[in-house]
């Protein structure tokens, strides 16, 4: 029979802080040297050679319990692939993913099951990620059913509580996805992710398909749920303003690698990587006075193909700093993420920025 007789209780707002040991302790999720390469077939005249698409090409970060980490970058930078590889939806080519110290990349299918209870995902497209033939009741009860939690009646009560938690009417539990609007469907997707009381939710562009007024509702909901259930988020988005709103720590990706990672205040006040600077300056702001007077770094050209990424620093062909003072290392050595001031947790991967700051720190360290 069932191994657990009662469904997990949704804690109320009063017991919220139980898991909120923010910013301390070992990381909840640790990702080291993660790579995901895809084989791309090319049909040449002589049979052709298979090429590798370097979607994720060495990603490192740690996410602490209670933290919301934003992973931002433009299309094709590998942020969604990184999320899916972390979730085990793609096998990793190389590297390590650890949840509470447990290695995930070597798990078998059946070993994954208990891990999924702790780690859930919200997808971008609220239309494609819900089965149109299932009622909301069965969508929300399914995770519990798979994990053999509760009896059918308990699961239904739980599903209604989940609907209420995401701001939907529990009486709509027998409706089908098409009877809801896009924003409401995204709420259902969030409720499904909450069903097993996970510690970590990986959100892949959860608001980018929604209209602004609805987007704000869903962002508020995600913030409220984090507080209420002590959740941690890995939040994938292309919109830096959205990420800034929800995440306390932010990583910027470019062509499969993290080029800068820092706490929110440091990243926005003192961006160090030339790509982060350009990205920040490119975001149009809903403020005509600011918008008309700001200095904009307009990058030239397009993002190069991850099939044949540039040697050295992948950003160098578009880098304004490299254009101003070309350095041979930018075209030969891939820069690593390095901390400038130990302990500040502000890391960036740029030869030129680091070179510029070395004399200062050396003289400071001299006796």
């Amino acid at each position, binding site marked *: 029979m069932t191994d657990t007789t009662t469904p997990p209780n949704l804690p109320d707002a009063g017991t919220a802080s139980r898991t909120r040991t923010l910013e301390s302790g070992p990381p909840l999720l640790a990702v080291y040297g993660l790579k995901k390469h895809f084989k791309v077939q090319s049909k040449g005249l002589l049979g052709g050679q298979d090429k590798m698409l370097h979607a994720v090409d060495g990603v490192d970060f740690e996410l602490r319990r209670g933290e919301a980490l934003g992973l931002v970058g433009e299309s094709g930078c590998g942020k969604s692939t990184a999320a899916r590889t972390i979730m085990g939806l793609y096998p990793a080519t190389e590297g390590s993913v650890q949840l509470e110290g447990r290695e995930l990349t070597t798990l078998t299918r059946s070993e994954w099951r208990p891990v999924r209870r702790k780690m859930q995902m919200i997808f971008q497209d609220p239309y494609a990620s819900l089965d149109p033939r299932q009622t909301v009741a069965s969508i929300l009860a399914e995770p519990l059913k798979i994990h053999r939690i509760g009896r059918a009646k308990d699961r239904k009560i739980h599903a209604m509580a989940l609907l209420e938690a995401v701001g939907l009417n529990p009486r709509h539990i027998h409706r089908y996805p098409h009877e809801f609007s896009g924003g409401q469907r995204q709420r259902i997707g969030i409720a499904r992710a909450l069903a097993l009381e996970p510690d970590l939710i990986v959100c892949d562009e959860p608001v980018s398909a929604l209209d602004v*007024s609805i987007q*704000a*509702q869903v962002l508020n909901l995600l913030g409220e749920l984090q507080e209420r259930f002590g959740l941690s988020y890995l939040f994938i988005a292309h919109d830096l303003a959205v990420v800034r709103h929800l995440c306390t720590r932010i990583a910027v990706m470019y062509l499969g690698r993290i080029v800068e990672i820092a706490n929110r205040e440091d990243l926005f006040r003192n961006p160090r990587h030339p790509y982060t600077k350009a990205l920040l300056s490119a975001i*149009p702001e809903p403020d005509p006075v600011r*918008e008309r007077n700001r200095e904009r770094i307009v990058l030239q050209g397009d993002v190069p193909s991850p099939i044949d990424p540039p040697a050295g620093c992948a950003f160098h062909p578009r880098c304004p700093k490299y254009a101003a003072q070309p350095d041979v290392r930018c075209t030969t050595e891939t820069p690593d993420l390095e901390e400038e001031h130990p302990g500040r947790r502000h890391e960036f991967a740029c030869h030129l920025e680091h070179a510029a700051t070395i004399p200062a720190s050396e003289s400071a360290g001299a006796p």
Partner: protein
Amino acid sequence: MALLDVQNLRVRFETHHGVVRAVDGVSFQLEEGETLGLVGESGSGKSVTNLALLGLIPSPPGVVEADALLFEGTDLAKLSEAQMRKIRGNDISMIFQDPMTSLNPLLTIERQLTEVLCLHKKMSRREAKKKAIQGLGDVGIPSPDKRIDQYPHELSGGMRQRVMIAMGLLCEPRLLLADEPTTALDVTIQAQVLELMKDLQARTGTAIILVTHDLGVVAGMSDRIQVMYGGRLVEMAPTLDLFAQPLHPYTRGLLGSIPTLHSHPGEDLDSIPGQPPDLADMPPGCAFEPRCAWKTERCAQESPPLRSLTQPETGAKRHSACLEIETLLQTPPSSAPVTP
């Protein structure tokens, strides 16, 4: 005389679910060389307004009616399809949101670009190709003489959008309708394309109607902004004035909904509760009434007209379709309504 004078434009679609009034009595003018931002969420009628101007609404199910659609004094609504074809792509052209579906994948860039020139300007193929290469160069496409022989799939998204812009501008139109021209693009590419549109406008003096849901984009690009909701214009104002003192609750809600690089992170956004209205089943009063924090009893009964007024302190000419406009004038933009 205004370049464009739209009077009481109405577009409805007769569907199985009833009559959908996508555009419901929209009037506005546009001066030469001006950039007008048309803002609203999906289904607010902004794209349909543009399509109706160009006579591109399929009929059936669409029905377009207007008191007048004057372009340089000619009423577009009264033109035959053949006459309209002479204007489309020549005097008025359009840039669509998705360059992948609006470029023909089977034709080279050259064929697609030179078509308008051969048709409208009666150029020879050779002249047209020369002009098209120049046009591609103008929009910042590297080695345009090589790119022109390629097919759309050989270009990146940013480049395809630039091809669309080049195509829209080849005949040096008086009016360019840009429908979410940068929505499908990444921010760094968006910055390139917007910069380009500004440069081209400064050079050619083309008037632009920029349709977008992104208030950041219109803040930097447009002289004036019109906000649409449920098929109607709810607010119309010069850009600076609109952002400084929005005079419609919906505009205020939109501005409060967007996280920006300078808002307070972590705090709740002032989201607008509820859902946009169902265009097939509109409320009898103000379309925004069910979601509005400023509503009074009158709002559910009367559909408020777009009223004009002059803002006392700035002298700006403002329009708003809100019965509570006087109250809004006196309260700072970020404050909630005072409940008695």
